[in-house]
């Protein structure tokens, strides 16, 4: 459009830059703090630029178990986070795919009943019913296990809905062509539907990976064994030291380590991420 408003352009960039600074500043400070020793962080004002303890701090964190974190090396916690995140992600995608397939491509008694049953879980976060869920887990003897960490979180209305939505956009003619080509339901699923869902699966993968990685309360209550601790819950233990001085350089180092994997995933696969997010929620 013909527009003669240089001021507007200036304001636009100013707003954006202010926003970016607001968003980046906290993590910048965390990053900076993680490169200092404890002395630099014991008195205000704390430094705004990197210190020289970075390698040292990160090496300590990744390899040795800090007492503040219950003696578990952050490296191990990150591995646990990874296992949990991948387990949740793959599990959710797998069961949602087939559930959505059943709902879209078949007509059978109680179809809508099942549909609503899944639907109603859409907004019922685990935090709301944490105690009874914990109870159920203990009854099933799933405490302190990877499957205890993973399975209860893999029912996903969101993913089921995304796939349902996606399947509905696949032209009817494709099924029809496949049927004329002599493909039965399983063949159609394997040969046509699954390959077609690739981008959606990938996009959802990112979203769910972040969801899984960032789990907090659930690992906090189902793990009592240290070698199952995940990094996001682990940090709480360090920050809430209460009795002893919080080891901010380690806490911020751990925070960086905990946020790097999901942030990298988001940035590296920005396009897929945006697609996954915008489509899975709408």
């Amino acid at each position: 459009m013909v527009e003669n408003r240089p001021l507007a352009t200036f304001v636009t960039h100013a707003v954006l830059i202010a926003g970016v600074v607001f968003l980046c500043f906290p993590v910048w400070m965390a990053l900076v703090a993680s490169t200092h020793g404890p002395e630099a962080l014991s008195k205000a004002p704390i430094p705004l630029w990197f210190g020289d303890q970075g390698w040292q701090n990160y090496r300590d964190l990744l390899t040795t178990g800090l007492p503040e974190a219950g003696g578990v090396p952050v490296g191990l916690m990150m591995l646990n986070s990874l296992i949990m995140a991948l387990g949740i992600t793959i599990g959710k995608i797998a069961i949602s795919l087939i559930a959505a397939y059943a709902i879209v491509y078949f007509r059978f008694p109680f179809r809508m009943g099942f549909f609503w049953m899944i639907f109603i879980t859409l907004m019922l976060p685990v935090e709301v019913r944490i105690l009874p869920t914990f109870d159920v887990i203990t009854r099933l003897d799933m405490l302190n296990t990877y499957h205890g960490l993973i399975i209860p979180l893999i029912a996903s209305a969101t993913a089921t809905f995304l796939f349902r939505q996606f399947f509905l956009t696949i032209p009817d003619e494709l099924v029809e062509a496949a049927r004329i080509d002599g493909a039965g339901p399983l063949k159609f699923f394997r040969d046509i539907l699954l390959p077609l869902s690739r981008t959606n699966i990938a996009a959802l993968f990112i979203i769910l990976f972040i969801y899984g990685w960032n789990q907090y309360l659930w690992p906090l209550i189902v793990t009592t064994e240290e070698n199952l601790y995940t990094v996001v819950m682990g940090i709480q233990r360090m920050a809430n030291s209460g009795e002893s001085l919080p080891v901010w350089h380690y806490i911020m180092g751990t925070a960086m380590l905990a946020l790097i994997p999901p942030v990298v995933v988001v940035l590296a696969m920005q396009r897929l991420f945006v697609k996954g997010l915008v489509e899975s929620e709408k």
Partner: protein
Amino acid sequence: MKRVVFRSRWLPYALLAPQIAVTLIFFFWPALRAIESSFFIEDAFGFAREFVAFENYARLFADAGYLKSFRTTLIFGVGVTALAMSIALALAVAANRVLQATTLYRTLIIWPYAVAPALAGVIWFFLMNPSLGIVAYWLDLLGYDWNHYQNGDQALLMVIVAAAWKQISYNFLFFLAGLQSIPKSMMEAAAIDRAGPWRRFWTITFPLLSPTTFFLLVINFVYAFFETFALIHATTSGGPSDSTSILVFRVYQTGFVGQDYGSSAAQSVILMALVIGLTVIQFRYVERRVNY
């Protein structure tokens, strides 16, 4: 609905079985147990329980602290939603204007989505720490005394900012998508109709964004109500003086820390009703009304 479907007596059930099993075991069973437990009081170790009918509920609604949590949750929810949505909208509108640079800015804005609420909380907690946090220090230089250990309002403000900070990316992406889906020709028609940029925004863009806005309202409320548990737990633990104890935190606090299973279960039931209410509102009311 699909025109053509496959016919099989058993296959659809087999395909649904895993999802339904997990849902039944980890959603419905606990939900039923919550309802059941809410009618009992129980000792910490689970040796004895006594049926008390609605006493747990009655006590909750007589408990000023619990009622205060409603207020806190509401303030928190409104605060987070308003802050996160208004900043995100401003950024999205700006990013949508700069054309070529949109991708660059988008990259710089979206990543906090990946930061866990707990981490967001801890990082802000560090920034705001009265004795060494840099922001608290700056505030002090400005003559503002920051101490969220003592001042409940400040503590609440801190968790609101931290929670909103993390949510901006999300809202931004949806607003940007919403803005980009407004046909360019609509803006052009308005320009020809002599509306300046400001007027165009308020009379065309903003109304056309209303479906996105309402969707985000619900999502942000749900986020603020439930998903920020980690943030509160990792920072203020509900304090000081109960001033950041939102409902979902209280469920945990009462149950796990206070070992008061009955009351915690009753709170769960109330919250579940609330969530289901929100869901229904979203699908029944909002969807219908906001379709222009």
